[in-house]
């Protein structure tokens, strides 16, 4: 018998998933608080103890692999030239690599921006600017300033290839921790994700998990192989596309409402229509966006911040609550779980808000343009109207008594014709909270990961 143990070191919980590869099924799952502040192995062993208690005996594992978003996840700064072009491209690469983009800068950097890179404890800087053969002055200027200001954290250069030699000289002149990869935008509006994303993953595994005290776990397990959001993205992609003879679900959206962020993933082409003109930077087939201000605990205040005073008053009156007080209580005690119906009601409401807002920012838009040649459609972003499945994951969705009311917030309930939200999708839920684990498993045995997901991701 071959067993795999798949671990997700989350910001709050360490989640374990034991898989039997012969029976092609999950043996059991268990979790415990993540203890990265003291010693990450403590929480892992506690979770493992619980797992064995649930199984009723101790079992051996052939492979133990993990993903991690513990200790603040992977914090990145995205630096480009023009906001709509290389800045947007660097942002998308960071997000696709499973990072949180804490800082975004365009054009020439200034000293106060570089100070923020230090103050916010950024893990990796992704530095781009210029299409190949285009502007190289800007990215060279920025690299030089980063060097002068003594930035020693890893910096990935993914800009204009014509600037590469100068950048390498700057890296060595200031003894910086520099890396070189392909341009994130080699031509105008063309997005090139893979090279930079792979480099981010390498650095994350080589250096960042070490610095965050996560690497210590590798005494006890085989390896940490991915940042958690990238594992979820891999799982979503596999579930959509299928593997060999095992069919996938087709186009889908995954929404993951967590304590600190709301992550949205869409796996589909930008559009299937032939009568629209696509505008702006190319959209990735597998796209992830992260809302750092939308979450159930750490980021609950962000939900309120996005409302006007009038809206808050309306909610308080309508629902008979003091929403600001409730949010504050959740922010101050991030490990709190709902204890009564009132708590559940508030969590449900916050989750609905997260789902609505996160989709608002993820989804593409279309506008009708009247020209002398007739009416034409101009589209920016991704068209999700045809999406077949919307899959919910994250504690609040899984534990909600009214999952559908959360999920339906991703669709066009307000009949805003300009937003290309899913029209009539089937709602599914990741009931056993296994998507990150299956993303890990997909690196070893994609077919098995797909079979298990198809079994445990169920309709609501």
């Amino acid at each position, binding site marked *: 018998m071959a067993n795999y143990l798949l671990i997700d070191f989350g910001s709050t919980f360490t989640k374990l998933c034991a898989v039997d590869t012969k029976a092609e099924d999950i043996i059991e799952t268990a979790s415990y608080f993540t203890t990265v502040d003291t010693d990450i192995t403590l929480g892992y062993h506690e979770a493992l103890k619980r797992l064995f208690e649930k199984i009723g005996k101790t079992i051996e594992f052939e492979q133990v692999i993990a993903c991690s978003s513990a200790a603040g996840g992977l914090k990145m700064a995205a630096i480009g030239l023009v906001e709509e072009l290389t800045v947007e491209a660097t942002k998308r690469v960071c997000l696709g690599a499973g990072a949180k983009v804490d800082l975004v800068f365009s054009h020439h950097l200034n000293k106060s921006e570089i100070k923020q890179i230090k103050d916010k404890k950024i893990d990796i800087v992704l530095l781009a600017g*210029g299409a190949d053969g285009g502007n*190289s002055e800007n990215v060279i200027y920025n690299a030089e300033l980063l060097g002068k200001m003594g930035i020693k954290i890893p910096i990935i250069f993914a800009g204009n290839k014509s600037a590469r030699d100068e950048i390498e000289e700057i890296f060595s002149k200031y003894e910086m921790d520099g890396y070189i990869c392909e341009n994130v*935008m080699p031509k*105008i509006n063309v997005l090139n994700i893979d090279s930079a994303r792979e480099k981010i993953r390498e650095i994350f595994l080589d250096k960042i998990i070490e610095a965050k005290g996560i690497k210590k776990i590798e005494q006890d397990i085989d390896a940490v192989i991915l940042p958690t959001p990238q594992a979820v993205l891999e799982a979503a992609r596999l579930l959509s596309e299928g593997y060999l003879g095992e069919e996938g679900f087709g186009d889908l959206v995954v929404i993951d409402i967590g304590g600190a962020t709301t992550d949205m993933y869409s796996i589909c082409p930008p559009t299937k229509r032939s009568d629209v003109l696509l*505008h702006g930077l190319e959209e990735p087939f597998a796209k992830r966006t992260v809302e750092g201000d939308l979450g159930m605990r750490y980021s609950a205040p962000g939900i309120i911040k996005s409302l006007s005073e009038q809206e808050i008053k309306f909610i308080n009156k309508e629902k008979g609550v003091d929403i600001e007080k409730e949010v504050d209580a959740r922010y101050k005690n991030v490990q709190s779980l709902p204890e009564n119906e009132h708590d559940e009601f508030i969590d449900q409401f916050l989750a609905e808000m997260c789902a609505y807002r996160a989709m608002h920012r993820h989804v593409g838009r279309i506008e009708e343009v009247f*020209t*002398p*040649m007739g009416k*034409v459609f*101009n589209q920016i972003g991704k068209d999700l109207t045809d999406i077949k499945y919307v899959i919910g994951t994250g504690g609040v969705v899984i534990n909600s008594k009214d999952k559908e009311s959360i999920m339906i917030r991703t669709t066009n309930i307000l009949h805003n014709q300009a937003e290309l939200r899913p029209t009539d999708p089937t709602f599914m839920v990741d009931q056993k909270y296994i998507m990150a684990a299956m993303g890990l498993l997909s690196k070893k045995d994609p077919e098995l990961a797909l079979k298990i997901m198809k079994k445990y991701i169920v309709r609501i």
Partner: protein
Amino acid sequence: MKTIVIGVIGADVHAVGNKIIEYTLHNAGYHVVNIGVLSSQEDFINAAIETSADLILVSSLYGHGEIDCRGMREKCVEAGIGDILLYVGGNIVVGKQNFQDVSKTFMDMGFSRVYPPGTPIDNALNDIREDLGE
């Protein structure tokens, strides 16, 4: 190699001439960045910044060129590429207006060269060679 950004400005979907311009300039040895139809002033300027372009060649075929092009030079100045060459051509105004007046209007708006309807791209090519010093 000199870089030229081309495209069709405004709510204008005339794509054929745009392709011919791309083909001609490419064959003449230029690096052509074609941002296509339905492009805004910002689309032209952003592409020009990222590619360090030497010239922006704006096409407008549906008569609204004056409205669409107004303020473009000022935006280039704000964006740090105030000295870039700006050409415009096509059916840039409605009806049969005196072209000298039209040309003056666009020159006053900061365009470097203005072309009347029906100008073959080869004519503009001579100007491009002259202006870009090749």
